[in-house]
Structures are given as C-alpha cells and as structure tokens.
C-alpha cells in the first residue's frame, strides 16, 4: 500500500456562535472566535489517498485528477468564502476545524475512485489542526 498526499491552501472567514446558548455563554466558550463580524484563517489541507500503484501508469491515482477534485469540491466551495453563510454543508454547525474536516471528508470520499481516501488533515493555523480518517484505519 502506498500513501499519496496532496496539499492545498485556501483562505476563509468564520465565527463561532451557537444560537441555543446565551450571549454570555457564547463569549465564555468561544472567546475571540465569537466576534460577530467573524475573522479569517489561511487553511492548509492535506489529503492522503491510499492504494496500490497501477502497474501500467505507476500511479495510485493521477495527481491531475486529484487536483481537479480538490479545486471543484473544496477551493470553489470554501476559498475566500464566509464558511458560516456560504457553505451549505456547514449550515447549522459551528465551523470548527473538527466540523470542517468532517465536511471535507464527506465531500471527497465519494469522489476518490482510484485508491481510497485515507486521511484528511486541515490546519487552521500551524499550531492547530484536525485529522479525519477512515475508522479503524489507524492514524498513519
């Protein structure tokens, strides 16, 4: 098994606010992230696909194809967007790293038909990231 990883970067804004909680609770739990005007990050996304190299092409999957999937599913949807308001898949969810990475997994998993999506890592900052991987696959 070979693991192939491709990286993309996108920039987006968001804010954390749960309408079911009081203003005070929102501020206590989410701190600065609760600023109603929102704030932004440069996100880095690493997508890892696992598979055996095709004996003819030597590729697990064609990187061009992966690039196109990432452009269509992620860049067009999230780059330079306000995640709370412009990404329907995040509607009703707090756009934390954990939730965004799960949405990204759901968008990519059915599109990867050569090899299998193994892991998605989303950096919100260099110091904070979330990993999403196939249950039982182990974090590699």
């Amino acid at each position, binding site marked *: 098994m070979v693991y192939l990883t491709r990286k993309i970067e996108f920039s987006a804004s968001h804010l954390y606010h749960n309408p079911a909680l009081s203003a005070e609770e929102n501020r206590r739990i989410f701190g600065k992230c609760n600023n109603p005007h929102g704030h932004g990050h440069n996100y880095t996304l690493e997508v890892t696909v696992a598979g055996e190299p095709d004996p003819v092409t030597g590729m697990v999957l064609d990187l061009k194809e992966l690039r196109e999937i990432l452009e269509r599913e992620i860049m067009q949807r999230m780059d330079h967007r306000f995640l709370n308001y412009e990404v329907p898949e995040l509607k009703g969810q707090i756009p934390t790293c954990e939730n965004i990475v799960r949405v990204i997994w759901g968008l990519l998993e059915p599109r990867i038909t050569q090899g299998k999506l193994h892991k998605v890592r989303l950096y919100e900052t260099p110091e904070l990231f979330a*990993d999403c991987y196939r249950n039982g696959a182990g974090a590699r």
Partner: protein
Amino acid sequence: MSEGPKIELGRRYRFSASHRLHSPQLSEEENCRVYGKCNNPYGHGHNYVVEVSVSGAVDPSTGMIVNLADLDGFVQREVIDAFDHKSLNEEVEAFRERVPTTEYVCMEIYQRLKHFPLARLERVRVEETSNNAFEYAGEEIQDRVAVR
C-alpha cells in the same frame, strides 16, 4: 464503515530546555562514542515542539472535541511549566534516572498527558529540532484491552 470517519484534534506547543545525554551504565569513553556532542558535560539546549493529538466525540453544541482553552491549560500545567527553560536532567524528576533522549521525553510527556479527563490522548510527537521527530502512542496492546 457504519460509524463514519474518526476525527482527531492536533495542537502544537513549544518549550525550550537543556539536556545532556549521559548514561551512568556506560564508561566515559562509551558515553562519548554513543552520544557524541550531546555528551558535553555542560549540556546544551533545543527548542522542542510538542504535537498532541486527542480524539473524542465532537460536541454538537460547540463543534469541538475539546475546548482548546482546557487542553492548552492542561498541557501548560503538566508539561510546559515543568519543562520550559529548565534543565531536563536536573529539574525533571523522571530524568534523574533516565537519559533525556527525545524518545524518553516523548514518552514522559505522553505519561503526563494520558490522564487528560476531557478527551482521549491518541499520541504525542516531539520534534527536538526541525530535522528529527519522535512519536509515542502508548503501548498499543494494553490500550486496546483498556478500550474494550
């Protein structure tokens, strides 16, 4: 695949500390041969990076596995306060008897963090410099037994 994918949260922390690699079980000459420059009796230091990964259910009301303020506070108290700007050999109890190689530093940090009450510690990765890194995820077999 009925349970859906698994999600982990990763956070990077930094501390700077000095150490000296010297094993009392080895002769002076062997220490010098095994540890090279790291055996310098005056010690030397590094800017360490500690990457902590935790897992757990994502709370739908916060979107979080764990509130970062809680994780940061725990790591600060358990690790950073104890290690930052310290001599690991002289000032961290665990390294009075053990050589503070980054393998052991990584395992010691794992031991200190594994009781974090708000999420499950998955693994600790320690970068001693930007060119070397060590990971420890506990003893897998014991962990599996404990989970089931």
